[in-house]
């Protein structure tokens, strides 16, 4: 593997989050769902994770920070902000990081806000929990109103006193983003933040996240099933399939460098503007669920280039945490 040459001891200095050979398994039964995933998220960058349903993209990302109730990390190393979160089978120091250094935007804005609590209070509470500023103080209140204005809520003073049900889905998602930003986090995790919203609102919310990330030098992990959305919004994309890390590539590089056959096939599936029906190629078969392990490529059964080795060999891992990686056993999409 050429990538092994890049492996360095310790953490590259510009990474906010480093994930090394991480495997995630279910607490009950211990089945390994995602295995051998390595990548680095740089400070201030937008990092996309794409996959179909059951690929393990949400399960994996939430498990990294112990946010998933039914999984545990079973192997690997996780480093966040130069602190080790997980090593030698032990989890460390999560308490003061979650909700302070790491913000979270869940999928459904209709169920993530407390319906019986005024919007303002939900933000001041978050500020209090992060920094101890008394929630009823003038300072805390002003900060919350400023945050509401920052995420584009019209009349933030009025919104402060309103309840979540008085807002549309898009506006609610903005409030959730305001709560996530209230901690002044270094990393924001957005788990399909727009799937519950329509096309217009989706564009506005993603634009808001991208803009805030650039302005605040905030790292973002954006999880989505929409490859085209990620292509237009983020710096690097990691592609997961059946719990295997298939591909990592830089979006700016697209078109100049080869892709993993699965990523390539995904792009061919998307009905974008200039395509005719014959340009769209569907991938035969059904996606396999997560938990494929590391023996053989999970995509082999649907891959156009499949050879015998694809089903038997051990999948390459991104041990060097390179920005450009392809797990293809035939070497497709590997940069030379």
């Amino acid at each position, binding site marked *: 593997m050429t990538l092994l040459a890049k492996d360095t001891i310790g953490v590259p200095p510009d990474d906010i989050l480093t994930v090394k050979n991480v495997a995630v398994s279910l607490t009950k039964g211990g089945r390994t769902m995602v295995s051998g995933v390595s990548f680095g998220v740089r400070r201030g960058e937008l990092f996309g994770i794409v996959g179909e349903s059951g690929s393990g993209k949400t399960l994996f990302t939430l498990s990294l920070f112990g946010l998933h109730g039914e999984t545990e990390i079973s192997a690997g190393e996780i480093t966040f902000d130069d602190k080790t979160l997980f090593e030698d089978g032990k989890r460390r120091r999560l308490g003061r990081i979650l909700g302070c250094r790491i913000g979270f935007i869940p999928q459904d804005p209709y169920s993530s806000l407390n319906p019986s609590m005024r919007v303002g209070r939900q933000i001041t509470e978050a500020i209090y929990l992060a920094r101890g500023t008394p929630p009823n103080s003038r300072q805390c209140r002003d900060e919350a109103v400023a945050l509401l204005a920052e995420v584009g809520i019209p009349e933030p003073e009025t919104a402060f006193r309103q309840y979540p049900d008085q807002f549309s889905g898009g506006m609610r998602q903005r409030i959730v983003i305001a709560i996530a930003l209230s901690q002044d986090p270094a990393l924001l995790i957005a788990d399909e933040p727009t799937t519950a919203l329509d096309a217009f609102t989706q564009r506005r919310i993603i634009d808001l996240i991208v803009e805030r990330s650039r302005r605040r030098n905030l790292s973002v992990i954006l999880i989505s099933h929409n490859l085209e959305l990620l292509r237009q919004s983020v710096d690097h994309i990691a592609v997961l399939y059946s719990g295997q890390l298939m591909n990592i590539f830089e979006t700016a590089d697209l078109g100049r460098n080869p892709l993993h056959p699965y990523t390539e096939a995904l792009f061919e599936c*998307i009905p974008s503007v200039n395509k005719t*029906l014959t340009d769209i190629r*569907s991938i035969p078969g059904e996606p396999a669920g997560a938990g494929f392990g590391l023996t053989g490529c999970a995509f082999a059964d649907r891959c156009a280039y499949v050879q015998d080795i694809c089903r038997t060999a051990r999948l390459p891992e991104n041990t060097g945490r390179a920005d450009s990686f392809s797990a293809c056993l035939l070497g497709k999409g590997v940069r030379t």
Partner: protein
Amino acid sequence: MTDTQPMVALRGITKTFAKRALVSNRAFGLRDINLDVYRGEVVGLLGESGSGKSTLANIITRLTSFSQGTYMFKGRDVRTLQRSEQLAFKSDVQIVFQDPYGSLNPRARICNIVGEGLAIHQSHLDATARKERVGSLIQEVGLGADCLDRYPHEFSGGQRQRIAIARAMAVEPDLLVCDEPLSSLDVSIQAQVLKLFARLIRERDLTMVFISHDINVARLLCDRVYIMLDGRIIEHGTAAEVLNNPQQKYTADLIEALY
């Protein structure tokens, strides 16, 4: 019937809903909808959520009533249909719903789900003939004959949507209404089902109302499109006209917002 007469002609269709206090301050409904569907064409209804697309689909399939206006189907006012004609209408117009997890009876086998319409609308077929038809339909939508004795929960979303399409096609409807049939499917599966629709349209000369919020999908399948906003049709025309050269700012914004 000649091609000059539309199969579906909606004139001034209006639907009002009783406003549900406390739940929502948006008044859903349709206002003054005029829409034609001619034999052999695919008509797209596009708009964001809450624009009334699905309500209109339910009116066309007569799953819901309307408050004002006239709905002519094959030249007949649907409000004056006799009992036997009502039955014929139900086999003439079929629908494929958005969510294939909610639209198939979990306790029925696939052969019964697909064959039920045949048993009602084509009662002259005996059990063997019916089974044969169901088998060939299942094959046409790209599933194996071994599916017939299985239950919906054994299938993935894409396979279920194929089953729903086979069910709708079973009675050889004149008009197929598809209410966002792709939006709950994964990208790779979406492309498969999209290709299936394209093939059915080509081979069977289907007349179809295709509802979508994905303009790129509409561009590929539809001959004509109607753009909806707040229960009204704000723009319509051939797909190429409207989508390449939109006259309304809203339509242009909608195209612009798409990924």
